[in-house]
Structures are given as structure tokens and as C-alpha cells.
């Protein structure tokens, strides 16, 4: 479990803080989405989770370990895997397998164990056949998957991803999102920073940040029903949610907070009189 208490952070002393008092608890195995306009502090908050940044005030506890304690930093970084926005700048190996081996190598594991973990991580993200490829020969989506494999090889309990689908084509996006979902189903905590509301409708919890604070939080249904508030922050809601919100405004009797196409189908077919019933009447 990750516990954040009254977190305040400023890059320089005396400067305007970027984070202004964040209280947050992230349960083990949950899928938490973090959204907000540019410059709201999402990335800064994320970097507190593995001690890349240390709180100016307040505490960040990862499974009970304080990020300000230098002795627990190594453990914290093994527990919280971090995927950065640009995969090109986090792949360090000359080949895919060497890159995945970097983390476990830093943990000082035996070569046989490293090879086992590299194999397992590449299997999880479906990149085994690329083990010998140089990173520059991969597509954007494949680079993201390699970055995820590199983190998985450390055997983390939580993974934090900073806009893992930016600049990807639809195919790459689907693969990356599918992998994240699978990892969550396998029990990993996922903290997913995103710009695209459509890809986080499956999250357990959505946190909306603005100006260094969490201004809205709840299930995707709860958060996306606050459409006007999100619009004021310059954020969008999923297209389907928007459509149903407009329908409701024009007086159509549909339920609020429709998130997915599947939900939408149910809601719409409930409006249409059942054809067989119609036949009976005539």
C-alpha cells in the first residue's frame, strides 16, 4: 500500500509549490488513474512514489517504507516500477534482452536468475522474439513494452506509468493498454497517468488533479458524471459519456455516467420497445 500524507513539494525553496497538500492512499492491487491539465503536478506526484523526488513537507510511505530514508530507497525502487513518458530515454541496453537485464543486474542477482527473469518479463509483454533486437529497430509501442518488461524484471509490487500511450498508433495503444490491464489482473498495483479519458474507464479509481491538488476523485462513473467541472479544468470525458450527457439534456431518459460502448448499447436497447412485444400487440 502506498500512503501519502499532506505532501507539499516545491522544486526550489521559497518558490511556489508544485504540490500543495496531497493526501492519498493507494490500495494494493488497485488500478488508479491520474488525470489533470498540463502542469497540474501529475508527473511530480508520480516521481514521489519511488523517491526520485522527496517531499518538502509531509510523507510518502511505500509499504511502510519512508522515501526520505536513504536506506530504504533501494527497496522502494525495487517495489515501485516507473515507466517514463519517453521510452527512448529509458532504454539503456544495446539489445532488448540486455535492457531488461539492467534492473536485475543492479539488484546483484546471479546471471542464471537474471536470464530467467528477462525471459519471463519478455513473455509477459509478448516481446520474446525481439530479445536480440537493437532498441532503435522497434516501434513506439514495442519500445513501451520493452520499458515495461525492464521494470517487471525487478519484480515490483506497484507500477507507475506516465502517459504510456502518448504518440502511439491505435494498434500500439491497444497492446500497451492490454498489457497494463493484464498486469493489474495479476495483482500489481497500477498508477496510470493519462490524457485520454477513453483509456481509463476501466480504472478502479480516478483522481483529478489541478494546480497541485486532488480536486476530484471517485470511480470513473462518479468522476465522469461531473462533466461540467471537468470541462472547466480543460479536460474531456469519454465520447460515449458526452453523447449520453447531451441526450439527457434534451430529455431522453438514459442513465447518467455511461462510460463504455457496451453500457451505451444496453441503455439504448432499453429505450427501444422490444420487437416481439410489438408483434404480440398488433
Amino acid at each position, binding site marked *: 500500500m502506498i500512503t501519502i500524507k499532506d505532501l507539499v513539494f516545491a522544486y526550489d525553496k521559497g518558490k511556489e509549490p508544485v504540490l500543495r497538500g496531497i493526501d492519498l492512499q493507494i490500495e494494493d492491487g488497485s488500478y488508479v488513474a491520474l488525470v489533470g491539465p498540463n502542469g497540474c503536478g501529475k508527473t511530480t506526484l508520480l*516521481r514521489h512514489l*519511488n523517491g*526520485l523526488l522527496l517531499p518538502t513537507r509531509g510523507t510518502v510511505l511505500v509499504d511502510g517504507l519512508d522515501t526520505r530514508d536513504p536506506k530504504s530507497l*533501494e527497496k522502494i*525502487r*525495487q517495489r515501485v*516500477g*516507473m515507466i*517514463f513518458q*519517453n521510452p*527512448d*530515454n*529509458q*532504454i*539503456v*541496453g*544495446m*539489445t532488448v*534482452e*540486455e535492457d531488461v*537485464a*539492467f*534492473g*536485475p*543486474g*543492479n*539488484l*546483484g*542477482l*546471479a*546471471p542464471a536468475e*537474471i*536470464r530467467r527473469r*528477462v525471459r519471463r518479463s519478455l513473455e509477459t509483454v509478448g516481446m520474446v522474439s525481439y530479445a536480440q533486437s*537493437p*532498441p*532503435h*529497430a522497434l516501434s513506439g509501442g514495442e519500445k513501451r513494452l520493452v520499458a515495461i518488461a*525492464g*521494470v517487471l524484471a*525487478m519484480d515490483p509490487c506497484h507500477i507507475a506509468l506516465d502517459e504510456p500511450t502518448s504518440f502511439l498508433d491505435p494498434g500500439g495503444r491497444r497492446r500497451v493498454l492490454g498489457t497494463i490491464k493484464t498486469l493489474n489482473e495479476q495483482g500489481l498495483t497500477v498508477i496510470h497517468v493519462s490524457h485520454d479519458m477513453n483509456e481509463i474507464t476501466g480504472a478502479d479509481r480516478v483522481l483529478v488533479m489541478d494546480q497541485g491538488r486532488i480536486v476530484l476523485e471517485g470511480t470513473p462513473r462518479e468522476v465522469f458524471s461531473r462533466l461540467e467541472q471537468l470541462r472547466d479544468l480543460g479536460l474531456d470525458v469519454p465520447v460515449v459519456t458526452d453523447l449520453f450527457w447531451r441526450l439527457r439534456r434534451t430529455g431522453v431518459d438514459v442513465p447518467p455516467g455511461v462510460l463504455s460502448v457496451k453500457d451505451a448499447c444496453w441503455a439504448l436497447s432499453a429505450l427501444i420497445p422490444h420487437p416481439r412485444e410489438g408483434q404480440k400487440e398488433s
Partner: protein
Amino acid sequence: MYALGQFIPSDSLIHGLDPRTKALSVILLSLVILNSQPAAAAIFTLFLLSLIPVSRIPAGAFLRALKPALPFLLLLFGIHLLFTGGAPIPPFPDWRITVTYQGLHKGTLVTWRFALLLMSASFLTFTTSPSELVCGLEWLLRPLNILGISSRDVAFMVSLALRFVPTLLEEIRMIREAQMARGASFGTGGLRKRTRSILFLLTPLLNNSIQRAEDLALAMESRGYGRGARTSMRELKLGYNDFLALGAVILCSGLPFLLKGLLDSLHAG
């Protein structure tokens, strides 16, 4: 696509050798080649040529590897040809700078040696993947550890640099296109204009590289990189073939000296 050292994958005997064996062999061969006389150079040439089929590298690849060095080889030959004192070859006048028999001999020998040197080094880069090379380098640099310089850190730096070469080349291409889209021209105009256009290329490249380095440092830290000991997925192990190969190289290196000794003793006798 850019390929470093032109590593050509295969499962030949030489590909399967330990990178250390290959690196040590090249070092040893280089030493004896640089001191070789024509007879010895001929032996080494035969030895290297006979290795080509063993390595399953197409002979054309070696010629291509020599090509960029050709101007240098010609220069080397020309300097020795012209600046070696001795008896001039008939049509050339007896001036201070002229073509001499000694010059021809020396020029040929020196150029031959360098071509052999390049060829033996090509065997290393053709048959060893960059990652194996770095792994071998790490081992060869271990004596540095006594001086407090971590050979692991040095090897890691080399591999990071190699990993980012294609990325930076790609970035240069992108910056170039972006500048050209805004009316810049590269490779035309006078020296002054060309220098200026390269500056327009280098400044954004440097800027981006610093940003990259910062991101990279954060990512490495997140993945537990630190001062402490690190391990690798690779285990270097010398096998039967490695000892065999080292033996062959040592034998070949010593062969000219052995033969010379033998001939000398025959003459003396």
C-alpha cells in the same frame, strides 16, 4: 540502417568463441604483424585468409571494411615510397625526394602490415556482437579497478554510447529536415555558410541530448543503478574451442620466429 562494427550474425566456430579470446588474439596478432618482415607477413596473410571460410563471413565484407581506409593506405605507401633514402629506380632522377628501391620495399611492407591489421580487427567486429564486445572489454579493463576506476562503469558507458548512436543519428536527420522545411540548406554555399548551417544543427542536437541525459539518469536511478556491485546476464566462460583458438594464434604468431631460428641454425651448421 546503421550497424555498428558491421557485426554479421552466424553460428560459425569463430562467432562462438569467447569475446576475450578473440580480443586477445587480435592484440597478439597486431603486435607480431607490426614487426613482421615479408616472409612473416606472408604467413600471417595465409593464416588470416584461411580463417575467412571458418568464420563464414563473405570475403567481400573484408574488402568493404578496407575501403574506407584506402586513402590512408595509399598515403602511407606514397610517403614511404618517396621519402625513403637509397638507390633510385632508373627512370626517376637522383634527387632528394625520389622513388627508390628501398622506398618501394618499405612502402609495400608497411601498407601490407596495415591491411593485415585492419583485416584481423575486422574478424573481431564481424564475428562479435557489440554487447559481447563490451563484455569482453569490461574484462580486459579489469586491471583499472586497482586504480579505483570501475571497469564495469567504463564498459557501461561505452555500451550506453553505442546504444545512443542510432538514436542521435535519427535525431540529426529530424533536425535537418525541420531546418530545411524552414529554408535552411545544408551542403551548399561557401565554407562560411556551411559552418553556420552545421551550427544550426549542433545547437538543438546538444540541447536535446542534455535533456535526454537528464531523463536517462532518472530512469537509471529508478531501475536501481548505483555505486554498488552489479551483475550481468552474461557469463564469460572459456571453453575447449577457446584454448584451441588461442593455441592456434600463438603458434601462428611464433611460427616466423621458429622458422627463422631454424634457418639460422642450418646456415650456422
